[in-house]
């Protein structure tokens, strides 16, 4: 089979779409409602939860794929708005942005310290 390199970006996009669809609403309820109401006292438990290694890895996968999901979609929005000719530059910008987000996620999650 002949393949365009788009197959790779699209696979990240759709895997990220699944991750975002499954996790984002609940995470938003957590950070928007539950954490503010539990206040500072919750730090120890939250720290313990997110630094549990399986959770860290899960968070990394969610963040990494979701970043590429968003990057791909934003690229195509801009192409659809008339920047088709600049698709090369858009790819650098959008996938580059997603890569920076992914690296930042890796750094933050690796330096959480142990719960």
């Amino acid at each position, binding site marked *: 089979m002949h393949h365009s390199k788009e197959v790779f970006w699209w696979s990240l996009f759709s895997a990220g779409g699944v991750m975002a669809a499954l*996790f984002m609403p609940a995470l938003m309820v957590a950070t928007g409602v539950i954490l503010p109401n539990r206040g500072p006292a*919750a730090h120890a438990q939250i720290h313990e939860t997110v630094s549990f290694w399986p959770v860290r890895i899960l968070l990394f996968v969610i*963040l990494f794929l979701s970043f590429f999901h968003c990057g791909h979609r934003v690229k195509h929005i801009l192409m659809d708005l008339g920047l088709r000719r600049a698709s090369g530059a858009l790819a650098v910008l959008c996938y580059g942005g997603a890569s920076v*987000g992914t690296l930042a996620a890796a750094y933050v999650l690796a330096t959480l310290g142990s719960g």
Partner: protein
Amino acid sequence: MKNRYMTPLGWYWFLQRPAFRAFMAREATSVAVAGYLVFVLILLNAIGDGPVAYDRVVVNLKQPLAVFGHVLVFGAALYHSITWFNLTPKAMPIYIGEDRVADFWAAILMGYLPWLVVSAVVLWAVTR
């Protein structure tokens, strides 16, 4: 024969049909989600930095602007989830033998049910 008349497609094309507006709204959810992902990084970083840094972020989450932001991204994320699950069976239909499972049930099976489970687990993890 070149230069013949052809319906132009301006940048505003997505305003021209209701379905195009819904499409663009769906795609634009990614901008909101991307913004939220950055916030998650900031929050995780603060969690790692210790109780004091964490307090600073969490206290600010009660500010009207933060609440408004959360409502906004939540609406976008919800729209993304619903449109995504509804479209999944179109891209990945499931079959029982030779019969295609109705999109409605396939969406529940592949999307809404796992969504419910995942959401419950996430909420349990931050309240226990």
